[in-house]
């Protein structure tokens, strides 16, 4: 579904991604893990289209989208969420999602008809709020939501674009264990219809959710495989998992 071929990005002398090749198969939850500074967020930005790679290609649904812009990729079903929460802070939760639905459903070059009359827009937004468990807070401004709720809304905005593949960049960042459970449950619910590329530090979540895991170290893919293979991989243990506490590796 998504194929990366030799993606490379340098910032001056710093190598952020160093020839990353990766396949994400339709229907899977593919986790991308790696130590801080491994280039995960840079890689997500290149896949999403907000950062042009120096070399290499991105294929989505067999089409070369390397030159396509961020919004063009969203249109064909490749959406992302942000590691640092990025919402329309003064909009209500419902308006946040409704805007994403609006962006997906046709042109916004409509100058006369009030959005408020487009009931199907808000019905769809409401159903997404139900799905992410925020419907009770639909009228609350995004800025006033609790951190965990903001993280859920962040994912909700990506889902509202009806992606075929969603890139979740550390969705559980800053969440407590209970809040993380809500997000894990959400990903379990959507995985039947959306392919997921998940960047996450929470190893518990990664090993519970992922069909396959890729390990990114110093801008290169060290290994890709099923969770047991990754857990058993000596190189991965040395480069990355070794830094984690023993019980987490065993989890």
């Amino acid at each position, binding site marked *: 579904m998504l194929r990366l071929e030799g993606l490379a990005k340098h910032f001056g002398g710093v190598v952020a991604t160093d020839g990353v090749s990766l396949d994400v198969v339709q229907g899977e939850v593919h986790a991308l893990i790696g130590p801080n500074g491994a280039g995960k967020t840079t890689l997500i930005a290149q896949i999403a289209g907000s950062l042009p790679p120096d070399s290499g290609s991105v294929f989505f649904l067999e089409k070369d989208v390397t030159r396509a812009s961020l*919004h063009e990729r969203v249109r064909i079903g490749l*959406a992302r969420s942000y590691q640092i929460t990025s919402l329309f802070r003064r909009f209500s939760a419902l308006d946040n999602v409704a805007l994403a639905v609006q962006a997906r459903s046709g042109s916004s*070059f409509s100058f006369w008809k009030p959005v408020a009359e487009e009931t199907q827009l808000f019905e769809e937004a409401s159903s997404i709020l139900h799905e992410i468990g925020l419907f009770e807070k639909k009228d609350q401004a995004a800025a006033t939501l609790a951190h965990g709720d903001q993280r859920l809304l962040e994912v909700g905005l990506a889902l509202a674009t009806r992606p075929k593949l969603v890139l979740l960049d550390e969705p559980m960042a800053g969440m407590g264990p209970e809040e993380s459970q809500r997000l894990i449950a959400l990903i379990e619910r959507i995985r039947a219809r959306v392919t997921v590329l998940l960047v996450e530090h929470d190893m518990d979540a990664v090993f519970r959710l992922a069909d396959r895991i890729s390990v990114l170290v110093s801008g290169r893919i060290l290994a890709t495989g099923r969770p047991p293979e990754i857990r058993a991989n000596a190189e991965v243990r040395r480069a990355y998992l070794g830094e984690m506490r023993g019980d987490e590796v065993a989890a």
Partner: protein
Amino acid sequence: MKKNIFLMVVFLIFPLAMQAVDNLFYVSFASRVMIYAIAATSLNLALGYGGMISFGHAAFVGAGAYAASICIAEGLTSAWLGWPAAMAAAALAAWLIGAVSLRTRGVYFIMITLAFAQMAFYLVNSMKAYGGDEGLTLPQRASNLGNEVAFYYVVLFILFATLLLLNRLVNSRFGRAIIAIRENETRAEAVGLPVFRYQLACFVIAGAFAGLAGALLASHGKYVNPNVLHWSQSGELMIMVILGGVGRLWGGAIGAAVLLGLEHLLTDYPIGWLARIAPNYQDHVGLGVGLVLLAIVLFAPQGIAGLFDRSKRAAA
């Protein structure tokens, strides 16, 4: 609703009452205020709703003023021709300037729009065929709207049409899109909105209405000169928007009325005790205006329109 009808009646009766007491100066003055209200409202669309801090809005007022004036000077005196031409000329200018300027952000956007407006200022200064730096005196108003009361009603109608259009626009899909872009450009792009296209469209619409205001302004004074494009005019429009309320429907109109009203009061009605201390203080009305602006920014950051509905946030 009752308040609106009352307001409407006041606006409709005002010129007739003034005519009855034979004081057409204030009818003409009110027309001028409303023309600036249209210009400031158009800037508010770009600046307040679209988040594009354009410091070159006078260029679009000027483009409209000159396009309409040239039409009249060339004998095409119908407003039905001259005013749409003014809007088209200003929209074209906004499209050209916007297409370049909108590739920059923040202070750079402010500076580049200012730079373009200054280029336009010097361009019309050198248009010798149409008066150059001396300006262009028109033999008549568009469509011969010489009657002050008739002209007032025309301007009033256009102002309310503009406000109605703005009200519809900001609540439409397009309006939601540009407000969302103002709130969080990156996220807007990431939910699939082509940000540049919407911003440019917003900029062009704002430019077109500034051009219409320019056409009215030229007809009002039967005169146009390069000073309508001067950067201080852009600044004045910006002050109106800030005074009245950034991103508020009535912001531009209220700001225009307050600023021009204040300037008029300070210039034409000497304050006795102040004149005794500083005889020529009226040459420096800018100081008084500045103090009022300072007070507004400090004590009513939502503008004067914001004082009326404190509970609501600006266009969010």
